[in-house]
């Protein structure tokens, strides 16, 4: 029966009646067979053409059903390309799926599950797929040999960036990105199991059944949307029924096991340390758009105690002239299209096979009533059974295909070499079987080298990652019976390794099919381009050239020719190219030691994975968590502007109506504090509760100064160094009880300090009796500062409680406020009379509200981090900009604090010659000589009149502020021998912002150097 006579009635069946859209026939759909649902029709478009297919189709099978052969253009030469495989190893049929922000380039048509409304567009062509201007590159072929770009584009020098590179860039790449934010959701999940089974072919199903029946927790991951692997594509029987039926029964049994999880459309993409596997589940790629709330894809981090790797094998091609024409396909793909999808890839199909397996394609074609133009086998001796299996088709043994003739629509004829003669055979499709490459990727991601198998003429896994076993074609066990047996055995072993055993069950029965082959890499007699890597347009001549130029190791070959570097990562081409290089290197001798030649390193992901999936929810505002203080709700209500400080958001200033810019608001806040009173949320500062008999001794070892002498009820400022002698952090520590201290840290360093303290305790001095815990989150803390701070405090606490006598400067006390436990501290960062009040965080918002009222009653206002910053600069207090990891205690002007009497972290290293050199830049204040001029942090200091050069660089400005109190800009910075240079005029040089300001070096304390305000 001819193929055409079958197709016509089928097309009628499939098309919905009364459709208004143009009748989309499926001329190449077989009348029957396949696992597609013919009762329902799906409409899709390719390059704008409306076409139809069925549920169960891939885009590739549906294109074939519709007679579409030309699907894409190749990377370099823009050669017309069709569909080459039926799986994710596809090098040719890359398309853009979706539109607008959902456009997804470089999508393999062979893996796209057809859905209604799918829109696919071909790529890497202009103006159209059929007429592609850059196909002219083929004429330039001789110039575009491997590595041509290293030898050229150098003349004239300036042309590279302006002319050549932009041209190369535009020509390169494949599909185009949408350039728009991805609108879909992604998420991540974690899974744990005893046995992870990768792949659901006969080996994987048998393994999952064995492990599942033993009671192990099993996760079965299958990349395809249907379970069964090759069973879906073959006419093979298991236990006397069709393989696909057996697979369905196996699936049903697995689905009924409570401890078995089946993840379909889920690719395991990487093997990581300690039984961690990465997997990608395509949750909603088979529908037009995810449901609201549904992720498009889900990234699984699977932790498995044991793993059965049953990924199967990929069929490879043979390098011969024109082997890239649309219509040249792997033999197993041809068979898959016929058997699984019920479509005919051609009407006159020739089979070029170096394997017994290829013959099965001819047999299946014949059985489906598709014309077999010829079976061409390079071997001279072929088993009679194979000959008999292909019906009456013409068989040519000892023969090779040299060149394929055809055009953009594909194969028209073959030139074969047979008995020393060239002969032309008419065919519209060529099925090629060069042998099978076990998928060694996941077994080698951790660096193990695969082993060469002579029998298979390919690499098979050797040493396994911990816990992994490999079964079936992935292990070079090529027959169905062997796959089933190996799967069951590995599944049992894996379960047993996790402590689960069951009565051994007989492996499912199947026949052993013939699986002989001969190595055939390259048909040397080819006259036209013979492709090795179809996607990257690497030809046999390129391998030759790489050899000639010394790029002979497989890794050099790869990098020089780009073999295996395309989106298919050389799944159909690597072994071929490596064997060709090995043959060249062996120089004609036939003892090619492929084991020594090796293969290139496989890397995750096994198949490309959307970058969005790795990110999950963590994008936009949710890239990192946001920490909000308890008073945030109040501050929002008060109209604050917020700023990121680490993960915290802090109120930066509180604009008032009529204030046009931040400076107006900040200056008003500063003035208000200096003249009346203000309050500021300081809850984000780190607070560490430190208790124990040795708490004081411990603090003495982590601070440069002595803390243990602090009386109960008092606080002291301290500086902490790293062991290398540079400043780590500063803050005040209060003594709450004889064995109880409360340390404060800067907001930014809180976690780091906690870790440092734990290190000092657990690693350096485990003998000390000290216990510490962060109480940052427990307490909401506010600073109340300004000459009227005491009035505000009195209003809250009553006058006697906050008198200078009962709460002197640097005093602290536990008390109660508004029915809540509270702590008050008399600390000042602003230089004003100031207090800090802490209450449990649930009262934070209410206290902020109460404080707002209280300060308002005394002419005050809330102030934010900016005003706080201005005031600390006015007072010469160092902060994050100065504690930049490059400064020492002395640089910060805190040298006097560094005790000589005791050991502390950093003490020894702080004495290194360069750290004590008097010319080191140290803290100074600066003011512009012309008070109207503005300062900018990051400016460098130069001597007046000195040339602006690095040799004259004397330091830099770290913090600046407009001081409303002084009516001008002021700054802190580090200046060489700074403290000795007060009164000197220097330049603050800021070329990146066009600044160059003459400043006077002054004391870093701009306001109230005697500290009289603070004692108020």
């Amino acid at each position, binding site marked *: 029966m001819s193929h055409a006579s079958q197709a016509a009635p089928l097309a009628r069946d499939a098309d919905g009646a009364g459709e208004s859209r143009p009748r989309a026939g499926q001329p190449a759909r077989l009348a029957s067979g396949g696992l597609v649902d013919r009762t329902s029709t799906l409409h899709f478009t390719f390059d704008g053409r409306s076409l139809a297919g069925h549920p169960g189709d891939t885009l590739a099978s549906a294109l074939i059903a519709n007679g579409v052969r030309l699907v894409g253009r190749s990377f370099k030469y823009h050669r017309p390309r069709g569909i080459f495989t039926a799986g994710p190893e596809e090098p040719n049929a890359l398309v853009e799926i979706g539109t607008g922000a959902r456009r997804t380039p470089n999508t393999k048509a062979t893996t796209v599950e057809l859905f209604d409304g799918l829109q696919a567009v071909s790529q890497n062509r202009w103006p159209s797929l059929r007429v592609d201007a850059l196909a002219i590159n083929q004429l330039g072929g001789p110039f575009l040999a491997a590595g041509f770009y290293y030898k050229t584009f150098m003349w004239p020098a300036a042309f590279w960036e302006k002319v050549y590179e932009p041209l190369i860039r535009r020509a390169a790449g494949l599909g185009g990105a949408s350039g728009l934010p991805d609108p879909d959701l992604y998420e991540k999940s974690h899974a744990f199991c005893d046995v992870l089974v990768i792949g659901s072919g006969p080996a994987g199903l048998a393994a999952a059944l064995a492990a599942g029946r033993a009671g192990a927790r099993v996760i079965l991951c299958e990349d395809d949307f249907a379970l069964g692997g090759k069973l879906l594509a073959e006419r093979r029987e298991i236990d006397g029924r069709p393989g696909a039926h057996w697979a369905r029964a196996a699936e049903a049994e697995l689905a009924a096991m409570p401890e078995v999880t089946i993840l379909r459309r889920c690719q395991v993409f990487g093997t*990581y*340390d*300690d*039984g*961690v596997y990465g997997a990608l589940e395509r949750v909603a790629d088979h529908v037009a758009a995810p449901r609201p709330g549904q992720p498009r894809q889900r990234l699984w*981090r699977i*932790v498995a105690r044991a793993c059965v790797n049953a990924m199967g094998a990929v069929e490879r091609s043979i390098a011969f002239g024109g082997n890239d024409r649309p219509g040249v396909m792997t033999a197993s793909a041809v068979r898959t299209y016929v058997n699984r999808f019920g479509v005919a890839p051609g009407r006159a199909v020739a089979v070029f096979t170096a394997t017994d397996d290829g013959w099965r394609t001819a047999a299946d074609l014949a059985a489906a009533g598709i014309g077999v133009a010829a079976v061409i086998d390079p071997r001279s001796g072929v088993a009679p059974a194979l000959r008999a299996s292909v019906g009456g088709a013409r068989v040519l043994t000892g023969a090779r295909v040299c060149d394929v003739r055809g055009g953009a629509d594909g194969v028209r004829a073959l030139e074969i070499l047979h008995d020393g003669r060239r002969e032309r055979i008419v065919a519209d499709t060529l099925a090629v079987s060069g042998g099978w490459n076990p998928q060694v990727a996941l077994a080698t991601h*951790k660096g193990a080298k695969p082993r060469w198998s002579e029998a298979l003429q390919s690499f098979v896994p050797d040493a396994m990652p*911990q816990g992994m076993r490999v079964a079936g074609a992935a292990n070079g066990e090529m027959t169905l019976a062997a796959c089933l047996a190996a799967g069951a055995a590995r599944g049992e072993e894996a379960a047993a390794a996790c402590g689960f055993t069951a009565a051994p069950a007989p492996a499912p029965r199947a026949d052993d099919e013939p699986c002989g082959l001969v190595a055939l890499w390259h048909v040397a007699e080819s006259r036209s381009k013979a492709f090795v890597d179809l996607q990257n347009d690497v030809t046999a001549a390129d391998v030759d050239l790489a050899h000639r130029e010394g790029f002979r190791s497989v890794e050099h070959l790869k990098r020089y020719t780009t073999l295996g570097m395309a989106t298919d990562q050389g799944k159909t081409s690597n072994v071929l190219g490596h064997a060709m290089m090995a043959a060249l290197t062996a120089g004609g001798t036939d003892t090619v030691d492929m084991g020594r030649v090796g293969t290139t390193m496989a890397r995750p992901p096994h198949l490309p994975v959307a970058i969005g999936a790795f990110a999950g929810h963590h994008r936009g505002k949710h890239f990192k968590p946001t920490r909000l203080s308890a008073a945030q709700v109040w501050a929002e209500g008060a109209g604050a502007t917020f700023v990121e400080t680490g993960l915290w958001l802090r109120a930066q200033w509180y604009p008032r109506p009529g204030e046009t810019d931040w400076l107006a608001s900040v200056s008003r806040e500063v003035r208000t504090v200096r003249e009346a009173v203000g309050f500021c949320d300081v809850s984000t500062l780190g607070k560490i509760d430190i208790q124990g008999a040795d708490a004081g001794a411990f603090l003495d070892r982590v601070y440069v100064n002595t803390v243990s002498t602090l009386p109960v009820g008092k606080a002291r400022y301290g500086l902490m160094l790293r*062991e*290398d002698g540079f400043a780590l952090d500063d803050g005040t520590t209060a003594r709450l009880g004889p064995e109880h201290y409360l340390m404060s840290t800067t907001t930014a360093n809180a*976690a780091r300090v*906690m*870790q440092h303290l*734990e*290190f000092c305790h*657990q*690693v*350096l001095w*485990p003998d000390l009796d000290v216990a510490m815990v962060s109480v940052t989150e427990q307490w909401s803390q506010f600073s109340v500062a300004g000459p009227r701070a005491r009035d505000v405090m009195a209003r809250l606490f009553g006058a006697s409680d906050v008198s200078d006598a009962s709460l002197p400067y640097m005093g602290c006390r536990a008390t109660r406020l508004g029915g809540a436990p509270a702590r008050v501290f008399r600390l000042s960062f602003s230089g004003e009379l100031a207090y800090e009040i802490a209450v449990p965080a649930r009262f934070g918002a209410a206290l902020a509200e109460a404080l707002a009222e209280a300060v308002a009653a005394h002419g005050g206002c809330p102030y934010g981090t900016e005003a706080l910053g201005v005031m600390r600069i006015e007072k010469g207090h160092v902060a994050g900009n100065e504690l930049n990891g490059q400064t020492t205690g002395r640089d910060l002007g805190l040298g006097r604090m560094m005790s000589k009497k005791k*050991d502390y972290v950093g*003490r*020894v*290293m702080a*004495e*290194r010659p360069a750290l004590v050199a008097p010319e080191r830049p140290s803290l100074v204040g600066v003011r512009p000589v012309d008070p109207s001029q503005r300062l900018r942090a990051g400016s460098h200091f130069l001597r007046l009149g000195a040339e602006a050069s690095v040799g004259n660089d004397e330091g830099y400005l770290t913090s600046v502020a407009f001081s409303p109190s002084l009516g001008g800009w002021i700054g802190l910075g580090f200046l060489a021998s700074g403290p000795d240079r007060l009164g000197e005029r220097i330049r603050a040089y800021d070329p990146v912002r066009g600044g160059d300001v003459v400043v006077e070096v002054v004391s870093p304390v701009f306001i109230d150097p005697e500290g009289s305000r603070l004692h108020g």
Partner: protein
Amino acid sequence: MRITCPYCGPRDVAEFTYLGDGTLRRPDPAAPGAAAAFHDYVYLRDNPAGRHTELWYHAGGCRSWLRAVRDTRTHAFESVALATDSVPSEQAQ
């Protein structure tokens, strides 16, 4: 990579931070040659390709400092102990 915290059990490496060579002992600052000893302590590290004793901190868990022995070629852990329970010299090769 998964680290079996002696307290928390096996956890993903993302919960931990690292501090390198776990054989070092903070020198006596009062001893002669303290400057040189501190230089070696702070800057010179064991960095073998193979068995390595190293410090980890379970920041995302129990906040314990851990002393682990791990192979830097394979990332396989041989042992993990609480730093408070293990003395550097006992584990040093």
